[in-house]
């Protein structure tokens, strides 16, 4: 699983980097369009849908994590991205996923935790 790997944006300065609202991975809009979200494409279905990307990702994130070894990294554990691919992740991502995704998550019995650290337990 962890051998998967997201595409790493080439220009870290780029303003338009976007973070997925569900798994907090950071990619360029172009990558989101081409490959979708490497972790949650199945549920977000952003590939090829710019509007969907607009809704499911955001430029409002704070802090960047380079996750090199997600399974053994405590940071990844803490961020709950242990099971995801390697790549760049946002520490804090502002916003919530669209309601349909939330409903879908609920339907699957997955608890949705927004990435904005608004919920702490």
């Amino acid at each position, binding site marked *: 699983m962890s051998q998967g790997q997201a595409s790493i944006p080439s220009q870290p300065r780029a303003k*338009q980097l976007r973070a997925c609202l569900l798994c907090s991975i950071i990619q360029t809009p172009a990558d989101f369009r081409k490959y979708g979200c490497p972790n949650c494409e199945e549920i977000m279905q952003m590939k090829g*849908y710019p509007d969907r990307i607009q809704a499911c990702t955001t430029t*409002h994130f704070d*802090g960047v994590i380079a996750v090199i070894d997600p399974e053994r990294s405590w940071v990844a554990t803490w961020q709950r991205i242990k099971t995801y691919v390697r790549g760049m992740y946002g520490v804090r991502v502002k916003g919530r996923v669209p309601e349909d995704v939330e409903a*879908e998550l609920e339907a699957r019995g997955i608890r949705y935790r927004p990435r904005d650290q608004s919920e702490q337990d």
Partner: protein
Amino acid sequence: MSDFEGDPNIGGAPDEENEEVEEEYEEEQDERPRKGSRKDYDDAEEDEEDEEEAEEEDPGVERGKKRRRTKRPAVNRFIDDEAEVDEDEDEEEDADEYARDDFVVEPEEDDLAQRAARHARFDRQERELDDQDLAKIAENLNQRYKRTAKRFTSDAELPQRMLMPSVEDPSLWQVRVRPGKERDLVFSLMRKALDLEFSNRPLQIFSTFQRDSLPGMIYVEAHSAKQVADACNGLVGVYPSRGIVLVPIDEMASLLQIKKQDLTVTPGSWVRIKRGKYQGDLAQVMDVTENGEEVGLKFIPRIDLNPKDDASLDQLGKKRKKGPTGLSSFSMRPPQRFFNYEEVVKVYGRKGVSKRNQVYVFQNDTYRDGFIEKDFRLTALQLDDVNPTLDEITRFTHGQDGTETDANVDLSIIAEASRKAAISVLQPGDHVEVFEGEQAGVHGTVHSIEQDIVSIQPVGMDLEGHRIQLPARSVRKRFKPGDHVKVMTGQNSDETGLVVSVIDNVVTFLSDMSMQEVSVFSKDLREAAEVGTGTNVVGNYELHDLVQLDLQTVGVIFKTERDSFRVLDQNGQVRLVQPHQISMRRDSNRAIATDAEGHELRVNDNVKEIDGEGRKGRVLHTYQSFFAFLHNRDYNENGGVFVTRARSLVSLAPKGNAMKLGATDLSKMNPAMTGGAGGMVGSGNIGRGPRDRLIGVTVTVTKGPNKGYIGTIKDTNGPIARVELVTGNKVISIEKVKLMRRNQNGALEPLEGSNTMGPPRGGFGGAGGHTPNPYAGNGGRTPAWGQAGRTPNPYADGGKTPRWGQTPGWGDKTPAWGGTTPFHSGDKTPAWGQGRTPNPYTQNQPKTPRWDGSARSPNNPAKSPDRPSGHETPRRGWGSNDWEDVSFIDNPNGFRRPGDEATSPAANPYTGAPTPGVHDLYNDFRTPNITTSMVTPGPSAGDFSNASNAPFELSDQWLLETEFSSQRGMLVEVRGSFGPTGWFNGDYEGKLGIVNSIFDTQSPNFAATANVRFLEPLDPAKPALQVPVEVLKPVKPEKYGTEVLILHGPHKGQQARVNMVEAGGLMVVTTKQFTVDELSADKLVVVRPVD
């Protein structure tokens, strides 16, 4: 689990639901472009491409796959719903109910046979489980999870605290990096890790991260510092040498939890716009895009109803290129005004505005009900500290036509925001009332406050005597009509007044200052007995002063706050200014501008705008004959002060004297002489500040590899100067000591020796031309002037000439120098011939020699000693334009001094130089930055305790007193050198000299001596001699403007300057510490710069 795979019913429900969800998607997708019209996707083209791509892909296949994958809610596999079946039949119903829930999907079949089969299966499983060993179970579980890998998973179930780091986890290491490079480095580390992954030395770090709120550091997760160092090795911008610090385990989590102040916007809340035309304006949020990046705002538009011709042409014909229409010479932002179709059409034409449904579209903005509706990025908005004022809110509520619109403004939102603040504004002793909760209606005084709990001492009712504790937000300050209150915060702060009405938390009071009703929130008020009075003056500036803010900007103070001002500058911008940001106050009492009809426009005229909004007002100030600052109490904005063009004003009252030519000075009518030019030059000088006067000087390098080269100083920095060499057009940095000033005639002089040299600008035509250097005023206190006089320098005049040119500006625009220079405040010689400044130059240089009686002067001036009191003379120069009249010249100062020639004819060989003109200039310029212009640093405050009122008797050995022994430059006269104890047989008796140094032998056997440079030595080869201190007597100052040393009194030993000479030889002196003292002349000694 595989049992369910074949069951067609399972997952049926979710499938349907999925369909629905997808339909919703479709709908949304349709909606999106509609809304998208307000959004600007930067990549619209690419979007199209992508749509094509999407079409190319076979959606059926693609989606079908997905659908299959998402057939069942994943949770079913984790929930052992069979267990319930094993229970009582009664619970079956419950289970059915669960089934209706989406969470657990129960197959909807009541086939008993099937159920029985399942029961059997379950029993079998149970038995198998019992048989299996635990390891196998674990393996099974493991496999089960492995299978889920491809699905979206989330480990969201564990509470965060369970994820706290343990000792087995890798550690976090803090690494210092170059600020601003944090994110780049995190990315670099990621790429590096991927690159080296399969090399023989892969990076052994697990992750690395950066937080925006922690600049200059990144955190790397690894087991040891060495691994971190290895990883960072070779990366630019990482400073491993500054330490790789282990983050304590209990701080690891908080690094990732840092939260910026979370600012959320909700529809209905208030924000302020940060930039652009609407900067600072209040706006209300209408909607927020789903990702929260953009918000739709509604606010009061600012439409320019007097557009420049360009702008309107743009609208019509598009013939001209679209320029920065708002940046025409006189850009002012239009006032807030509701959109009015008729008005706008009148100005911009019918084409400019189109109407769609209920909405007008004008210049790509939509207007509804008079408000503009516009999308803004969140970053362009100020979300905190919005503090909408009541005025602003009321404007919103009343809407376009002044009628209350249907409460689209929710006052409770402000109230809520106010309440948050309320906690911090309560103080013990405040009178409060409870407005919500059980105790509503109770009022009393605050006894104590602990965080957000206040305990109050109720007044009245049966609660009296008990203290009750309440949350701070459910109490508010209580005022009743008749209370005298003071506003503590907000735009009305420091206003005081009498409360006239209280409605909920809005208190209306009658201001003591403006006598107008002011409504404020009660939280901003305190009871106060004081009456707001002196608030109009802060520092040296007061309300409605015209102040210079920087080189280009002047403004009028329209509001004074506790320690700052609100200033409206000539561009119509409002600035918050601290007193120290103001370089000086300007005076426009004598400034004259021309109004629209060509009449004279003066301060205090009542005028009216002829275009624009037709505002009326009283002229407070004019600036550069172009801008007029007006004041009208009836306008609320900016305290009634506004700025407009003088040319667009007409006088309200016709002026009878407008064209009385006889009485009016024609030169004032001439804008070239009075207005812009003069003022401009003057202001330019003021703003320039202390520029190094070495810049621009032509020098010769006298040492080092570049010796002999000639160049010009371009910049100086401490002892280093940057010199542009003439040869090779090279700029070199070189110590100033290696440079010599090169005069026009090729002579070399020490660079910084302006003490011995001619005036800094004097020798230099070019330099003098481009810097009418205020500091040339220094010349007045240096012997420079004297020398210039003695050796008439053909270039000296040339150098100074430019200054004359600007003088009229000074004279006409700013007569009251005394006022503008606090240093000189109370100057009783106002307007000393500002217009006459040129005169002293020409006049005094020749005059100087005359004073010292050496008759070396080539042309003794036509100065008539019997000219009547100069005090009055300069006045004549004022109104008339005879300031140019060189023949009308005298040195009023010289004659004001009572009987000076008689007492000491040779007293002041140089004092011709410090003419009033020079000194006025000097002082004025010096004010902004006194210290830099000081030639001799004032001695440290001496011993003040020796002040006595006893009659002053200077001791013979006065030079040896501690206050003076370290001083230099005192002008002394040799007296008592005859006789046996004398010195040089009295040859030097009566001669004047300047003390270079004092040598105190500390012994009665050896006479203490002073090294004195004589002004007219007997032996020209030896100008300086050692003289016994006993024969040296101080030379009294006689003239206004003389530099002196105080011999007696509390300021003993300090340097000062004579500001005024009064009858009886009393002199008013100002020390370098800016204390003013009145001393008789014999307690002072003239000081000359020592070379």
